[in-house]
């Protein structure tokens, strides 16, 4: 394994930990809003780390660019969707857990 491989391994494992945290949050947190926190933040950071790890291994700049494009799309989508869900939940009168 080269130095790049070690860096990739570290980034991928970090990404896996964030995904785990996202799932644990989804299972443990008490209401829709808190679960949205877990999902949008932890998962996007997890995908970001996995993407960063894979970018180091990418065969070309353009392949790395495609990974980045996918990540940005997921970020944009999950930021917007989490807002839409939170807003509708609030309008529907789902109370927050406190």
């Amino acid at each position, binding site marked *: 394994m080269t130095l790049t491989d070690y860096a990739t391994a570290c980034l991928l494992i970090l990404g896996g930990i964030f995904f785990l945290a996202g799932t644990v949050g989804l299972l443990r947190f008490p209401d829709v809003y808190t679960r949205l926190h877990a999902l949008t933040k932890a998962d996007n950071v997890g995908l970001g780390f996995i993407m960063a790890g894979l970018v180091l291994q990418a065969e070309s700049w353009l392949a790395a660019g495609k990974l980045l494009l996918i990540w940005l*799309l997921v970020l*944009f*989508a999950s930021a*917007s969707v989490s*807002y*839409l869900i939170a*807003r509708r939940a609030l309008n529907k009168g789902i109370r927050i857990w406190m």
Partner: protein
Amino acid sequence: MDVIVVLEWAFDAVLGLGLLWLAWRTLNSPDLFKAIVLFISFGLLMALAWVRLNAPDIALAEAAIGAGLTGALLLAALARLRTTTDNTMPAQLPAGSWFQRGLLIVLLSGSAAGLGYAVWILPSHTSGLSMAVTANLDVSGARNPVTAVLLNFRGYDTMLEMIVLLLAVLGIWSLGGLPPRPERPAVAVLDTFSRFLIPVFILAAAYLLWVGADAPGGAFQAGSVLGAAGVLLLLSGWRPGVRLMQWPLRLALTIGAITFIILGVLTLLYEQQLLAYPVAQAGRMIILLESLATVSIAVTLAILFLGESPDPEEKK
């Protein structure tokens, strides 16, 4: 190396069991919304299964249609169902007598056993028709064997599929379509989201169309990505203009099937065989067919989602 084999086995085993379990829960969930969400998850895992089976073409189609558009269509259908029926729960079917149940069990296990037997007696090492496809790939006009089969060797299949899509729209329209209903107002965030994403959808669809010539991709994937862009616009509150709903819409819906039929007639006249393209023109014809089919598929899927008849006042 051994570690990788073990991991691959474990991955496939979890994937297979997960799929079976999801299929079971989807079918037996009494809550329709839960069933839809389970079905969407099933589509996601199914795409992974196609990837593991080394069939990226189908994985791509499953991603575009199975996990993407079908989910949106089912959710919209559920919403319509809620507004047209009083209770959200489906009516309980009568249980049936012991004899009926026994007969059902015998029939179902019989057909399952038959299918199992059919799979069992398949020769385990055969290339099927892949040798024939590879041998004729040069004259097909495409470098991706799947595209060669879909648009050339068995072009009539794809032609009939285009007609089936058209029939689906005609079916909805001939029933008078659904009553037009305003969308929930799109908030600024959703509005911005769809406005910024539409150009990306267009580029992705064009890319899938282009890449179909020598890698997984093609008209159906491109069409459903473009159709999803249309669905996003509809969900954000956009509606096609009144004039657009008349002949431009009808032309877009039928252009794919029409081109197929015209090419079919021409090839019958000049080559004495349905959709047997002359070798020199095959590549160009496939691209023409695929581009127009993409437009038709995209418009068909968006119109299926809209579900409204183009002239509702005529029905009254």
